[in-house]
């Protein structure tokens, strides 16, 4: 079976989730990937949505974080203050799964405004939602986002969700408990923070993608890890499960 770059990205993101994890799921690409993981290798994965649904088991992809199917299939449904105060804040959720409008060299995320002037923005985006505290308090963060120069910038216009700040030690200085972004999974490959500098570097390419393509789609001089590996192509089972979820019928 052939596949699209988006399908490769979603499959790669799903594989990053282990079955014994509790995952705080953002809507869009992260939700598709988390649901795919639950339907393939990680049936025990606990999906947590900020609407208050813990352990949701949707049989179809929810359009929003509050679709009825999430509440109807959840192990527990809690109020929004309880979700953030009792479940997220103390560090009970292992993985935060986030998207981004802009992400920078150190994994900081912007979903607020594009442009230098907050008061007079070039583009007004939806804003923070649950993301700042998800990025702060989950054990670790995985970002799923399509890679382009518009999105992968040297420095975000606005820090909505803190990644690694401007380098090593910044998270600890702020007293943030989670490890922050550990994986950035794109339609081209995977970026991970360099252990010494916390700068995002290229560690993996999806099949058929070149390092030059990844560099061209990044707004800072993207460095590559000593050994860049190649992602295993999506299996037939993964693609079948993904297409059943998204309703995609035809092969590209």
């Amino acid at each position: 079976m052939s596949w699209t770059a988006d399908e490769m990205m979603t499959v790669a993101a799903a594989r990053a989730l282990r079955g014994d994890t509790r995952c705080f799921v953002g809507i869009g690409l992260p939700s598709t990937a988390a649901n795919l993981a639950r339907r393939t290798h990680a049936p025990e994965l606990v999906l947590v949505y900020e609407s208050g649904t813990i352990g949701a088991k949707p049989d179809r992809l929810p359009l929003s974080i509050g679709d009825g199917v999430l509440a109807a299939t959840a192990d527990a449904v809690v109020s929004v203050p309880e979700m953030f105060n009792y479940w997220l804040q103390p560090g009970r959720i292992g993985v935060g799964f986030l998207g981004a409008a802009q992400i920078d060299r150190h994994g900081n995320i912007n979903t607020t405004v594009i442009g230098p002037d907050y008061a007079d923005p070039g583009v007004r985006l939806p804003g923070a939602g649950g993301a700042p505290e998800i990025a702060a308090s989950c054990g670790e963060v995985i970002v799923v986002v399509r890679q382009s120069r518009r999105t992968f910038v040297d420095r975000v216009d606005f820090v909505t969700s803190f990644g690694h700040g401007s380098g090593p030690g910044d998270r600890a200085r702020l007293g943030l408990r989670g490890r922050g972004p550990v994986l950035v999974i794109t339609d081209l490959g995977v970026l991970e923070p360099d252990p010494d500098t916390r700068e995002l570097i290229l560690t993996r390419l999806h099949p058929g993608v070149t390092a030059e393509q990844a560099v061209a789609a990044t707004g800072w001089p993207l460095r590559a890890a000593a050994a860049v590996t190649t992602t295993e192509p999506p299996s037939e089972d993964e693609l079948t499960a993904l297409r059943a979820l998204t309703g995609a019928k035809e092969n590209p």
Partner: protein
Amino acid sequence: MSARIVPLADAIAELVHDGDTVALEGFTHLIPVAAGHEIIRQGRRGLTLVRMTPDIVYDQLIGAGCAAKLVFSWAGNPGVGSLHRFRDAVQHGWPAPLEIEEHSHAGMANRYVAGASGLPFAVLRGYLGTDLPAHTATIAPITCPFTGETLTAVPALNPDVGIVHAQRADRAGNVQFWGITGVHKEVVLASARSLVTVEEIVDELTPVPGAVVLPGWAVTRVAPVPGGAHPSYAMGYSDRDNDYYQAWDRISRDRDTFGEWLTGVRA
């Protein structure tokens, strides 16, 4: 029937005044959309609108020119994209300039908790390292008096009017809701006056797993509005109209098609 139970138009006329701070809540579920339309019909102006997730209903109120200020944490069309009327107001001041006060969900939820609790502020581990505190005056660092740790304080939200939708009420005006309950309880208890629109009035509130009951005396007015959450939903009564959320993207995208929609609501 309790005198608390009144028609929607009467409730809005009595409770919502020009210049008020008004919170319509409902986290994807049980959003009081019909109440928002009634506010538009009655032509309220200069409102400070408060809502964690200003989605379609606030796009409509903003586009209709009811709002002077928005207090929020996520302004989008969930699962679809941008709110075009909100963006037009922030980026171009159309139909009127819109002041914004921007938070995160955790911060907004805690502000309602403080409001419902009769406290001046709430404390959370939030906003650290973000650019939000630099632009939002209602976010401030606070030192824990016991551990010395730096945390974040946010002031209580106490709206003039809090409005939510619920599944049902009994004839005494006691209210019951279940499913995703969001900040329903908190916004009703935090507000000086409150209105709950309901799918139906019943003789008895039979128990439902996970349901919240608000005693009638804690609610100012109850208005029966079947389908009053559409295109949001009321678990057990209706499904989320995802097609409408998609359609709103087209309706709201330009001022003229939105104007046609507005004419329909006002008619």
